[in-house]
């Protein structure tokens, strides 16, 4: 056969994966806290020095890791997130007005990403009704319960991280490192997936794919994963 039966998404490394990323773009980052974040891509964006980023991510990292790295270098001008604690530099920039912050309920954030990827421009949700989140938003009653209209997010770039991926961009996650990664994969116009293990096409069970390759435009094998733990909690050891 003169053609492959799949579409290869492999790029050489994180730097190559940034091709087309320009200043003042909206960029999504997968992860929850420091779990499942695209460590390699974040480092590469820091090195590239891309400025004016509007960042859509559930959290903002910590001072010296995750998106905290891009906050320190002032590459992020606006943060769209559900929870931004645990980051002093973030707090400083927000209070000083250097950083714009838009807080979105976590489920709404997840659904707005999915909606973007699924061609649903807007949907109604009960979350946030009666709170400041609902300010200026359309309210409608369904089943005697008020809901607000929320819109899909647009993002020219999404950076996500998976456990395993094949060359066609099919992805599998491990544990709770899945979190926002699948929906952001769907939402990104260009979705860059970094993976711990990059395997040949055909090695992954087609029944077990979490994100089909159609949602991934670029994939590379990440290196040097730190996978830092934010809250190390343990039980007493059994005797």
């Amino acid at each position: 056969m003169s053609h492959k039966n799949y579409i290869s998404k492999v790029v050489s490394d994180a730097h190559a994966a940034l091709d087309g990323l320009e200043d003042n773009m909206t960029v999504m980052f997968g992860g929850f806290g420091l779990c499942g974040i695209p460590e390699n891509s974040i480092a590469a964006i820091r090195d590239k020095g891309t400025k004016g980023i509007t960042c859509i991510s559930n959290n903002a990292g910590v001072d010296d890791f995750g998106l905290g790295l891009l906050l320190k270098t002032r590459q992020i001008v606006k943060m769209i997130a559900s929870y931004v604690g645990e980051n002093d530099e973030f707090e400083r920039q927000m209070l000083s007005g250097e950083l714009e912050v838009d807080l979105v309920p976590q489920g709404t954030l997840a659904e707005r990403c999915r909606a973007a990827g699924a061609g649903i421009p807007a949907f109604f949700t009960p979350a946030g009704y009666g709170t400041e989140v609902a300010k200026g938003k359309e309210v409608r009653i369904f089943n005697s319960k008020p809901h607000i209209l929320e819109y899909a997010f647009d993002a020219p770039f999404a950076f996500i991280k998976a456990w395993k991926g094949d060359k066609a961009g099919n992805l599998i996650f491990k544990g709770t490192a899945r979190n926002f990664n699948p929906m952001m994969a769907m939402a990104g116009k260009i979705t860059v997936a970094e993976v711990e293990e990059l395997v040949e096409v055909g090695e992954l069970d087609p029944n077990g794919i979490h994100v089909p390759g159609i949602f991934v435009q670029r994939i590379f094998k990440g290196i040097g994963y730190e996978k830092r733990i934010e809250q190390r909690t343990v039980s007493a050891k059994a005797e």
Partner: protein
Amino acid sequence: MGLNKNQIAQRIAQELKDGWYVNLGIGIPTLVANHIPKGINIEFQSENGILGMGPFPVEGKEDADLINAGKQTITALPGASFFSSATSFAMIRGQHVQLTVLGAMEVSDVGDIANWKIPGKMVKGMGGAMDLVASADNIIVAMRHTNRRGESKLLSSCSLPLTGVACVKKIVTDLAVIKVTPNKGFVLLERAPGVSIEEIQEKTAGRLLVEGDIPEISLD
């Protein structure tokens, strides 16, 4: 006197019904998992994407890819499943989770809750709290009856920015178990051992209905 944190959690655990999926917030709510009554089968959901959440791992078994919504390392029990945040909040918004237990800074006597923002202080964000309170059929608040300045946290209306409206169904504090009703406001159900009805009335700023005998909380 009054209940300590563990006792509040223990009392809330008495509300659990067999077969419920439960989401526990950070703080006192987390402790509820330690007090599941005999014969009651419960699965815990954490909104970052796990059902069947187990206890903290033993030392050396922590896995960075396995955390709860408080970013703490956890374990997964047999029968657990992992899923995306969109699916997780589909469970929550779609009312598949039968009970949500969370803390609060203020609750009003119509069930409004404020627990995410203090004007003038650093705002960390609502996380999943707004989705949880807007969706759950059954919300129990675990908190102290008064704040550090001794002021009631059970108000006629919340002074802090709201997390959700008319959603809290029950409150368990160090002093009392209180039902929240849309029409009659707070209804006193039980009082902590040794705590008088007068003390509860005094420390409850919102409407409080006291009707008939008010038994003491039993923790056995």
